[in-house]
């Protein structure tokens, strides 16, 4: 074979200029495709997978950082404003990535299978839903009977305060729930946490009496959105107005802002996770995961360290809960079902428990499968149903297909398959976690060893 530019790229993706070219090419290709056809899911997939290329290829760190910043802070918001569905996808990926990173501390690092993780998400969400809505004034009224002109308890500014408050409230919840049960063996702990998740959900469903805290199954709405300075809209319009092609409305801008907030939370989480992982605390967690008996014999206080993992994981979920309540302006118990917990778990397992890039990849993959592939299939099916198309050979009219067969609702199937297949074929996940390589003096002394 004649060595060409292409064979070089395939052969030497690990060195020199080639990786940089691949990364740039992928990003530009994705952006271009989305720009040309803003409604194509495929184009969006090409764009979003450029993060993978960015992660996978070995390139200059500064270069990677710049490309990453351009992608997340420039290209994605612009693409998202042009097609609001993409922004929703990106936002959900960010939310789930943050949740999965939080669960990863509990499951991936400390090895504690928490099946009720969304309980903490719910705590955060209801925290803001209660204080950031009229619910305080609704307390004496049964659901649906409250007068219509009630004021909001707190102004939108308080939202940002509550993002911080949620860290502590959720962590405290984690400690309260964890203290009695963290002594339990792993499989029992899993079932008990499942129970806690259900308890929180049932409470949310039923605490509409004797005092109406949660408004029961109907949920709380409207919830205050955080105040957004008009300047933000103006700046965004000034900067990106040209590429977007139309004036950006405050409503769109809100979505961009929530995406950016979620992104900021993720960055903090990744930072905290990495720092902790590489310290006494993180080593203690991993030691507990590997062998509890040996860990305790080395002087690691099991319950205290497990509680720490529980609390840290919970606090991340709490923050995202506040963010969810603020962005959706509506919260109901349905968002915090057992299925959601398993969804987040399947993201961690798919990506690779204990691995930060893996977990983010897992969250992105599962969310895209949910939002784009399953929903895309649903859309496609409903179009087929309306047409008079017929499946050949068996001569079955699409129109006769049950309307219950809505692929978008088959998330359990997806989560279930992910969990089973990963456990059997690749338990360490798509991107297995790697122990940090230290630069050791003795390694150098040994030379080639």
């Amino acid at each position: 074979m004649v060595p060409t530019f292409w064979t070089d790229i395939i052969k030497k993706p690990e060195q020199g200029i080639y990786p940089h070219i691949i990364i740039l090419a992928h990003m530009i290709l994705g952006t271009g495709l989305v720009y040309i056809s803003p409604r194509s899911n495929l184009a969006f997939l090409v764009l979003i997978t450029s993060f993978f290329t960015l992660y996978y290829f070995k390139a200059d760190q500064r270069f990677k950082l710049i490309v990453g910043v351009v992608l997340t802070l420039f290209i994605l918001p612009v693409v998202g404003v042009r097609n609001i569905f993409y922004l929703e996808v990106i936002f959900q990926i960010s939310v789930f990535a943050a949740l999965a990173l939080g669960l990863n501390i509990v499951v991936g690092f400390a090895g504690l299978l928490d099946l009720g993780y969304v309980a903490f998400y719910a705590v955060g969400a209801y925290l803001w839903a209660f204080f950031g809505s009229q619910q305080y004034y609704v307390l004496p009224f049964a659901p649906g009977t409250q007068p219509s002109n009630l004021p909001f308890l707190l102004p939108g500014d308080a939202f940002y305060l509550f993002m911080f408050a949620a860290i502590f409230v959720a962590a405290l919840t984690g400690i309260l729930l964890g203290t009695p049960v963290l002594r339990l063996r792993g499989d029992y702990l899993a079932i008990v946490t499942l129970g806690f998740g259900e308890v929180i959900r049932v409470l949310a469903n039923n605490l509409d009496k004797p005092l109406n805290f949660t408004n029961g199954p109907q949920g709380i709405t409207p919830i205050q959105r955080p105040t957004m300075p008009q300047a933000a809209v103006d700046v965004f319009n000034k900067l990106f107005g040209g590429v977007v092609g139309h004036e950006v409305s405050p409503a769109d801008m809100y979505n961009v802002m929530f995406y950016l907030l979620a992104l900021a939370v993720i960055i903090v989480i990744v930072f905290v996770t990495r720092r902790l992982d590489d310290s006494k605390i993180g080593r203690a967690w991993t030691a507990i995961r590997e062998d509890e008996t040996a860990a305790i014999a080395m002087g690691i206080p099991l319950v205290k360290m497990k509680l720490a993992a529980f609390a840290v994981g919970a606090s991340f979920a709490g923050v995202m809960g506040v963010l969810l309540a603020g962005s959706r302006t509506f919260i109901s118990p349905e968002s915090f079902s057992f299925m959601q917990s398993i969804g987040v778990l399947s993201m961690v397992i798919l990506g690779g428990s204990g691995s930060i890039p893996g977990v983010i990849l897992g969250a992105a993959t599962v969310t895209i499968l949910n939002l784009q592939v399953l929903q895309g299939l649903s859309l496609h099916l409903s179009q087929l149903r309306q047409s008079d198309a017929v499946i050949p050979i068996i001569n079955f009219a699409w129109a006769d297909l049950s309307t219950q067969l809505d692929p978008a609702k088959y998330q359990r199937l997806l989560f279930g398959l992910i969990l089973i297949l990963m456990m059997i074929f690749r338990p360490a996940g798509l991107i297995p976690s790697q122990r940090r390589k230290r630069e050791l003096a003795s390694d150098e002394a040994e030379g080639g060893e």
Partner: protein
Amino acid sequence: MKRFLKSINVPELLRPLGQLIFFSLGSTIFLSAIALVLALILDRTVVGQTLFERLNVSLYTYTLVNLPQVAIDGLTIGFVYAAIALGYTMVYGVLEFINFAHSEIFAVGAFVGVEILIALDTFGILADASILMAYIYLILAILGGMLAAGGLAVAVERVAYRPLRHASRLVPLISAIGVSFLLQDVIRLVESLTTGQFNRIFPTFGNFDSRVILAKMTMGTTPITLGMSIKSIIVIVSAVLMLVALNYLVNATKIGKAIRAVAQDHPTASLMGIDVNRIISLTFLVGGMLGGAAGVLYALKFTRIDPFVGFFPGLKAFTAAVLGGIGNMTGALLGGIVLGMLETFAGSYMGVFTMGAAGSEYKDIFAFSILILVLIFRPQGLMGANVAQKA
């Protein structure tokens, strides 16, 4: 024939019967006493007054009059829990593994049984069935549910658990959670594709809905009839039969001996010439069959089923197994009955006792509270031996 009769180990048939009666009576008396004492205390408070104003009856009388009905209902659901709990406990005894998908095995049993009956119903067979034939069809449905659930349990073990048998503890558990979710949607998919809907109703036939009247009385001014539906009697009788049969299988046959040997120690059992894999499959088969039968009985009792029907009964049955001492079969019976009773008592009286602030809507998490308390204070369960964690 004579030799066959001689070979039956009569004490092993009677022992579980005795246990069941003892557990049922014991928990009924115990819980009734608690309810009555509470009622006596609360009668003098605002709780009693409120009730008196509403129904013109004292809280104590109200509690007393309702007791038999509550106990019967508790017993019915308790036996269903016990039958499911046995599936968890048998698998746990043999593999030290929580078969999270057992709740869906139960659901599949329910669906297959109900679909058989619906199919019979569409041909008009059920409508003109005599009472005798109705029972035969019901037994047919139960057998169908058992076969399907048992077969599925074996298949699931083969595909999703066996490859993971030597992995760390949480790996098969995660796989089992996956199976549970997958099966829920597979049921839904199959039902949607074939019938166009996934909520199914147990057809009405036979005399299952009629009630046997036990007593009539009046409470205040309202007349009350105490009765037991035929359904409940069927559920209790079939559950008792199955439990006795299972006990016989495990404690008085050669296969049972092999199961117990495997539960003790896999390598040793296999050195004794026992095919460990076959015994594990068998355990799943038996546990699955019990779960499947329980599914059909559950559908009979509660009429409406959907693909997620297994979740709560499954979790409660697991709680029952832990409550009794997981791995211990008698414990599963005890746990099931106690839990079913507790839950029904709480569901029936909590609303009245708390003046409606917390009623039966908390029934489902009641079981969890028990689970958590048991695990914290007595992790070996009511009957389990104190088993130190295997290193």
